[in-house]
């Protein structure tokens, strides 16, 4: 029971945060959640399966723009539009993943980067549909979640759903196969794993989660802007996953918290964020390859051993 006590307490605090804190903190937390959702998707790909995608956030863009077009132009109901946006990002992930997965290691990274740039250019230039560089305004929030406090709960629920999906995947045979693929793909194939099928599936799932994050983000900001889904944001997602702890359940949450929270706390400009994160990345690859989650895990184990 004690295993669940701490997460339950944390959940209660997070859900009641609107009653305890001002709008500024809530706003920052919503951004954390919105960064964490695509990061969970990338963690499944990069952390568990070993697929380093440099175009991940472009799939958040597919989710965001699909939601925008469906909600504003097609006047579809909010929740159906959200569901279609998630499915569209997942389908795009499956199709593009199938192409990218013909390549390995750094070639795979380059191809994902190229697809990310292509998708960004479409968002930036297809004026008739995406409204181009100026952004797509007038995206609604769902009926019962128009205030900051209520949207906070929606974003938190979305993030929790993403983490629940991650937890279920990692504990399943599907997850065990993904982890095996990361460790030794040739051996996994020799054991009977259809590597292309599983890697395409995780690419689709990761992209669908990115799509969920993107759709919620444009709805929170009430505007979809191409700059939210550019190469820099895809790199940020990789940094969040690696700094937080690739291949750990809590990694994306810790990474997103640090990535959004630290600059706010330190009152540094967004441009400095990359400098700080770059330095952190170097330190982490040198001294803590399992990220912040790994550092916490090791510290906890050491404490537990001393306690005994």
């Amino acid at each position, binding site marked *: 029971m004690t295993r669940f006590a701490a997460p339950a307490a944390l959940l209660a605090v997070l859900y009641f945060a609107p009653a305890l804190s001002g709008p500024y903190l809530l706003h920052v937390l919503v951004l954390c959640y919105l960064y964490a959702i695509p990061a969970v998707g990338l963690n499944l790909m990069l952390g568990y399966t070993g697929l380093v995608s440099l175009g991940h956030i472009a799939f958040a863009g597919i989710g965001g723009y699909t939601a925008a077009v469906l909600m504003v132009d097609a006047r579809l109901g909010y929740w159906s539009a959200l569901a279609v946006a998630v499915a569209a990002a997942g389908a795009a992930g499956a199709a593009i993943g199938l192409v990218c997965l013909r390549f390995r290691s750094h070639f795979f990274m380059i191809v994902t980067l190229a697809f990310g740039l292509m998708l960004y250019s479409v968002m930036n230039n297809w004026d008739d549909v995406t409204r181009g560089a100026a952004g797509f305004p007038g995206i609604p929030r769902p009926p019962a979640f128009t205030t900051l406090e209520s949207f906070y709960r929606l974003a938190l629920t979305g993030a929790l759903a993403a983490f629940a999906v991650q937890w279920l995947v990692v504990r399943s045979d599907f997850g065990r196969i993904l982890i095996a693929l990361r460790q030794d793909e040739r051996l996994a194939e020799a*054991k009977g794993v259809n590597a292309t099928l599983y890697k395409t599936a995780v690419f689709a799932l990761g992209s669908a989660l990115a799509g969920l994050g993107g759709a919620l983000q444009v709805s929170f900001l009430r505007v979809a802007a191409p700059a939210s889904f550019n190469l820099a944001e895809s790199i940020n997602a990789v940094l969040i996953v690696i700094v937080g702890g690739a291949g750990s359940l809590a990694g994306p949450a810790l990474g997103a918290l640090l990535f959004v929270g630290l600059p706010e706390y330190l009152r540094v400009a967004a441009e400095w964020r990359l400098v700080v994160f770059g330095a952190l990345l170097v330190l982490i690859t040198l001294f803590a390859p399992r990220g912040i989650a790994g550092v916490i895990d090791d510290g906890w184990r050491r404490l537990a051993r001393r306690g005994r």
Partner: protein
Amino acid sequence: MSALAVRALEKRYGGLTALAGCSFAIEGPGIYGLIGPNGAGKTTLFDVIAGATPPDRGEVTLQDRRVSGLAPHRLVRLGIARSFQECRVFPEYTCLENLAFSRIALGSRPDLQEARRLLELVGLETYADEPAASLSFGQRRLLEIVGTFLQRPRVLLLDEPSAGVNPALLEILSAFILKMHAERPGLLLVIEHNMEFIMGLAADIIVMHQGAVLERGTPQAIQASPRVIEAYLG
């Protein structure tokens, strides 16, 4: 009908000819040795049979059904399993998880009781919950080979199982292979350089040289063959 046959296999890597018309047929269950000097094409032959690489020409048949060109995961489902010359295990998985994966990858429930029994047979039971990375090379080799048997293959390809294994573990390995074969007879094809080891396992030995079969026969006949001696010394 033959359980496993290769016909006129050819495989080139750039200017290097790894297989040059390799043909043989194996009728049924048993332990067969595959020997030959370095560069004879033995591992390439395994890669072709297991689907890791397609042949340029020729075919592989399993129970007279053509299987060459199929992907490794399809071949595993047809009953072909293999070990690797360089020894492959999942380093982060524990011994037990490694063995469970032999069933999980096929979409079936792992038989942990059976896995523990086999770990005991090779003396690794105390390492059941240790990550494979913490084992010595010889122990990893034992784990790898136990894992191939848990795939319950009809055709098992072992690529130099004795390489890098110390004499004490080698005896365990040899006894294990014989015991597993007695419990569930299948077709074992074993690449070896260690003559003593392979002579103790196989009664029928295929000798490869320059990408083709040079000789085939009992260990005694092979050791007495002038062509084999010349291939090794020349």
